[in-house]
């Protein structure tokens, strides 16, 4: 019994899984995480997960891009080497706008996506931390930490009641290392 690390409730239907979460929460069972093959809308509120602040990062990266582009063009075209084009002013702001816009988008996109990869620990070659191989296919998996929640038979019953097709007892946290 003590070898079991995680109890997985594997559901075939997202609505039944949501029902399962409610049942576990009503019985004071803490949920470790939920693995699904597609985004489930409304699950964050149920699990009490805070909203993502990635939009703030995106804005900061974007504004950095705007400033970087302006600084580059201003330095090159206004300070370092003024090109005399028919005597027109070298500080021609309207002409700077296209590149300022492009670099805003470039910095914002790369900054945000790299922040996302870093915060979610995604990078090429990272060993996948998968508890159930079908969680990327057709199963919606609720993972419960077996050490923290001792009443395994109760959890088993709650999950099956909610419609779990299968309840697994994993002795290793991530099966994908095998």
């Amino acid at each position, binding site marked *: 019994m003590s070898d079991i690390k995680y109890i997985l409730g594997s559901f*075939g239907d*997202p*609505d039944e899984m*949501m029902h399962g979460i409610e049942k576990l929460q009503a019985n004071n069972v803490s949920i470790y*995480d*939920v*693995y*699904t*093959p*597609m*985004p*489930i*809308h*409304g*699950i*964050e509120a149920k699990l009490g*997960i805070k*909203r*993502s602040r*990635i*939009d703030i990062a995106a804005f900061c990266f*974007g504004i950095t891009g705007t400033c970087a582009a302006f600084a580059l*063009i201003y330095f*090159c*075209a206004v300070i*370092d*080497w003024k*090109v005399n084009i028919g005597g027109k002013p070298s500080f*021609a702001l309207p*002409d*700077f706008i*296209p*590149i300022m*816009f*492009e*670099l*805003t*988008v*470039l910095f*914002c*996109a*790369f900054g*945000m*996506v790299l922040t*996302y*990869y870093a915060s*979610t620990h*995604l*990078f*090429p070659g*990272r*060993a*996948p*931390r*998968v508890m159930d*191989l079908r*969680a*990327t*296919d*057709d199963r919606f998996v609720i993972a419960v930490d077996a050490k923290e929640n001792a009443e395994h038979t109760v959890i088993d019953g709650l999950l099956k009641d909610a419609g779990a097709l299968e309840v697994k007892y994993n002795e290793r946290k991530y099966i994908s290392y095998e």
Partner: protein
Amino acid sequence: MSGHNESILREPLITGNNITYAKITDDILGPVENKPNKAWWIGFTFAALGALLWVVAVSYTFWNGIGAWGLNKTVGWAWDITGFVWWVGIGHAGTLISAVLLLFRQNWRNSINRSAEAMTIFAVICAATYVVSHMGRPWLAYWVLPLPNQFGSLWVNFNSPLVWDMFAISTYFSVSLLFWYTGLLPDIATIRDRATGMRKKVYSIFSFGWSGSVKTWQRFEAVSLILAGISTPLVLSVHTIVSMDFATSVIPGWHTTIFPPYFVAGAIFSGFAMVLTLLLVARKVLGLENYITMFHIESMNKIIILTGSIVGVAYLTEFFIAWYSGSEYEQYAFINRSTGPYWWAYWMMMTCNVISPQLLWFKKIRLSIRATWILSIVVNVGMWFERFVIIVTSLHRDYIPSSWAMFYPTWVDISVFVGSIGLFFTLFLLFLRVLPSIAIAEVKLLLKTASEQAKMKQIKEGHEDKEYVAEYIESLEKFDSVKQEDYAKI
């Protein structure tokens, strides 16, 4: 993803009545997990031969310089920039589908966005090679970057649209690639978790360790939405800047303020045509009729009528403004376009882009796969001619009649163009083999609300208005993947 039902007045986005989450995965990964069929090999052989021709022609250009092309001192831009603008325009539909339609919550984009985005990336690769090879000395391509150099430093000219274009195209390519790849991560993970051995290892590396946990998905959706939000103005800016390459010059026929919206509409027009050219074949060969339905095809055809009509209005406006301007040079440029030595190219453009897409107003044509496919090719031919007309007819009769000339392509011009089509199809066919051609996770999202079986269940529950049910069943007639007899008893 909850118990909310979608109105049955909306056409289903997934047809078939035994679709499960597992079946979606199986259907979409079929071409990736199994050996390719004969049709794929035949297509790939021809495409690869085309790509080989491209390698030969581009290498020949690099070795000999652009004298290998049919350019002369009057017509200094011809098939190269025609090809460049054509390919970039085609690429635009992918971003439109993945970004603009996401912002507008058009769920039908979910099953076509992946391959359309792949198409964008391959089209921009084809376009970029034109830019590099038309430089003449491609090994000095880095001169377009603002790098410190030994001439002063003499920087690039930031007032030039060509420099803006370099920033726009490279941003567009890299952001599209990022958007596409991030969207692919969950689907690559799906392949990984079903594979064994070496295959598992390879897909494991490319899946970046995706787990599908709640936080991963939450951030994924936020990232997708913001990327869509910034890609929407990006895609508009790219073709705007491409059009400024022409519009900021003083050449009659190019010097028009209408160019940015006109080019953007043309880009979407040609891009959707290319999406149809590819997907009508792919859906049949890969057996994806349940996911890319007649509703998707009809919706794309509607966008083609809209953008084709915008392009038509732009052609007429251009002509009117040339007359209205009172500038004889401007007037001559347009009279020469339509009645001069290149009259056939002009009327080819008019027929293919303005007249023939109007046939799509007829429901029968809009819903005929064969007619749609032929029209999609016609549109692409027309859009190639549009760029050719804009570029060559504006240049070939310049200010001194003694320097008037015609443009005749050499075998290298033709080979670079035909070869780029081969390269495009080679990349696309390889993509179909190694990555899922439909965004699996996004299609799964639709199963419980927008699928035929979900709506069937709603009808069977009996709470729907009879009139609505009749209307819904009538709307299903156009679907080639719906069995009408299932509805006979309802």
